[in-house]
């Protein structure tokens, strides 16, 4: 059984920076489709067209160079007031299943996959399977069990997930799992992430608490030193 489907990764890059970030991690990911989004952040005070008039051609050149260097299948240049809105729109338009954000890494040999529970599980595992089938990485599935919860439930979750990846055609040797008990899942992920090259995270609808207190996901992404591949929560 082959992978789940076409994996297309959206890579947003702040194209207003003269030195675009190194995207070496893309080379390590193997044969996945990559769409580079060169976004140009426009402050509220400026009309987006003003910055396009001034920087349009420079930004286009930068993006073209970047896309050529990493063999991206598409490059999109957008002048925007709102980076998040643009990422969402472009990911929809180009059918991207995951968005690569944050951190730096030169290789992509070890993948950490924190699993929260059943939320978004199918989509995350689909992306991980495609990722492993396209390249040569090994993956660690990770789950953190709350202090008062039954750890066997977490074990079941992880073992089931491994089985699913094997069903997709991934060699069992390339997947292992880790379970921790108690502690703060968020801190665990950040700490553990340092040992890996890339972390695959599932995007979830922010809960009310998250909307007020700040998104847990963006907290993790910001704290991670390695790149995060955020699996989009869309049909």
């Amino acid at each position, binding site marked *: 059984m082959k992978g789940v489907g076409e994996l297309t990764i959206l890579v947003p890059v702040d194209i207003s920076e003269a030195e675009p970030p190194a995207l070496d991690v893309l080379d390590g990911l193997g044969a996945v489709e990559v769409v580079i989004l060169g976004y140009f952040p426009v402050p509220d005070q*400026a009309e987006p067209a003003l910055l396009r008039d001034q920087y349009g051609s420079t930004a286009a050149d930068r993006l073209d160079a970047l896309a050529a260097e990493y063999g991206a299948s598409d*490059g999109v240049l957008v*002048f925007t007031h709102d980076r998040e809105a643009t990422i969402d729109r472009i990911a929809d338009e180009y059918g991207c299943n995951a968005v690569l954000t944050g951190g730096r890494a030169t290789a992509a040999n070890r993948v950490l996959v924190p699993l929260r529970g059943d939320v978004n599980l199918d989509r995350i595992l689909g992306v991980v399977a495609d990722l492993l089938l396209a390249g040569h990485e090994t993956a660690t599935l990770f789950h953190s069990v709350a202090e008062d919860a039954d750890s066997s439930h977490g074990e079941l979750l992880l073992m089931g997930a491994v089985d699913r990846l094997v069903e997709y055609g991934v060699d069992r040797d390339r997947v292992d799992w880790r379970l921790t008990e108690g502690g703060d899942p968020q801190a665990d992920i950040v700490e553990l992430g340092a040992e890996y090259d890339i972390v695959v995270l599932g995007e979830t609808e922010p809960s009310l608490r998250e909307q007020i207190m700040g998104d847990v996901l963006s907290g993790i992404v910001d704290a991670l030193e390695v790149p995060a591949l955020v699996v989009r929560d869309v049909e």
Partner: protein
Amino acid sequence: MSGEGGELERTLGFVEAMTLGGGTMIGAGIFILPGIAAESAGPASSISYAIAGFVALLAALSLSELATGMPIAGGSYHYVNRALGGLFGAVVGWGMWTGLMFASAFYMIGFGQYLVEPIPFLDGRAFIVGLGLVGLVLLLGVNYYGTEESSAFQNVTIGTETAIILVFVAVGVFYIDPGNLEPFAPFGPRGVVATTGIVFISFLGFEIIATVAGEIKNPSRIIPLSMILSVVLVTILYVLVMLVSTGVVPFESLGDSPIPVSDVAVVYLGSAGVVAIVFAAIIAAISSSNSSILAASRVIYAMGRDGVVTDWFNASHPRFYTPHRAIAATGGITAILILVGLEVETIIALLAEAASFSFLVAYSLVHVSLVVFRRADPDDYDPSFALPRPLYPAVPVLGVVSSLVVVSQMASVVVVIGSAIVGFGVLWYATYTRGRVVSEGLLREAIRGPPAEPFRVVVPVANPATQRGLLRLAAASAHANEERGTPELVAVNVTPVEHPSALQNVEADRADHQRDLLKNAHDIATEMDVTLRTKAVVAPDVGEAILDVIREEAADEVILGWDGTLDRDGYVFGETVDPVVEQARCDVSVVDLRSETIGEPVALVAPGPNAPVVAHQAVEFATVDGTVPTLLNVQSPGGGPDSDAEERGRAVVADAAGAAGLEPGEYDVEVVVDDDVGQAVVEAARRYDTVCVGLSGRSEGARTPFGTVTERTVSDVTGNVALIRGSNAS
């Protein structure tokens, strides 16, 4: 790969547009001006707010159409520049920019007043001006360095200030002392109108939605909706605030207060109310001023883009990407305006009125621009929100008139300042813009009117004997439809050949015949004073070729000649005419010309889809000889008395004439009551020179069925016969 220099993200949705529009509007205008308004109009100042709101609504309606037609940055300036050319563009552009600076200075002085007044020992003009300057500098700093994604913060602050005002109104309604509202208008209607000019500034802000049109998602829906809704809601809010203010505190003492709303709130909400109102007033002043700076940079950008001012302003900051020069220039002049407050005691009313003046002038030109766009109808103007009749032309006309009425009642010093700004715009155009950019505007096209759609009648000609008669009928038809378009005839002659090819020459004499026919058609048309084009076609199938021409020319009507014989060789009219009658998507008349005179036509009117077309065609044909046509209906007596049948017949005729849009004087009515309907029709029809009969709309296979009445008419009448099929009956 990356497209034409990149896409522009449209990030503003409905909520953002509403908070932007509403947040800019709800500002110092409602917290400061109630005092001044009450002083000059008494309790009737609520009417001033209502009038100002109405004037703003008219502008919002016209702007909505223009903004959906051209959703790019610039707002009023851009539309006026496009429509009326560089001179008016410069006037409105400079007017808007200075207006926004006046407004910004006004907000910041209001900000100072609200901060200083609640703390009595800090009283003093210098302090107010100083605080205003500090506020301005902070705002400029923020804007110079640039902000991003602050909409959530904006929503919270504007939501809070609106909630405070709502509480103020909702509670205040119960504390209104009717005695305070008497007399309602102590300074008469003049005072009310004059106050309108001052408070109009409270409505600046809805336009910012048009100014940022290029950044709004789904502009065709959100622009009109948010602009109109925000003006309406804010107007209601202002009127209520004014009613509560003058109802709770006598207008005389309200007029003395620089912070009237807080003075009203203390009456029934106590010191907590004062704190809340001061808080709301401060954030309102900041958000309004901020939006004005934001809007000003858009206007300057648009002016620079069009070459009306130097592009130097538009260079963005190399690190912050803000239009820092535009912001600095706007801020610098705003600071000077605030400083004027040290010397001029009535600065707040003056700034308010000067800003109102600039925008009232701009909006009256916007209304004119809307009319210009509608009349010139340029290809790239296709608004998804178009004012329906009778809003157009009522809105632009009322808009110009009401703006001018308000301006006419303004203080003379303001009129002088405003006129000076207009004069500066004119001077600027003459010395800077002209010679650099040629933007003519659409005025000339608008005066000429849009390229008129022709009303086109296609006439296939083949027989020299009948072509004059056919062209006369066609010319009459085209002229009679002048209100639908400029009359134009297209004479077609088709020379049939088996296999047309460029290499094969049509036999010389057939080509000559075609040329003669069409030249003759030209001569006839010249005599009849109608535009005629000719088409010479060589094709294997005459009927198909005529249908092609009808389609290409988007014909409104086709008039075909025919020899008066029906049902021959398996065709109804003939090999050529049948396909045209069956397939043409316009009105079709098949005419047998039996006499030279068209004379007095009669239309046989029976209920059915063709009746109005037949009636109208009779009216058209009647114009050939200047007669009045008769609409004829025949009824069988049925059970009742003859008068009932007569009534029925008249009703049928009236229905058809009504559907055809005919006036009662344009036709005579004849109703015949007879047992033998067919015989009666023929007998009645024989008395006329030309008979118009409808063809049944139902088409069965290749056959166009016609009733026995039609058949008998065709065979028995001596006059001309026209069989008519309406375009909607096909």
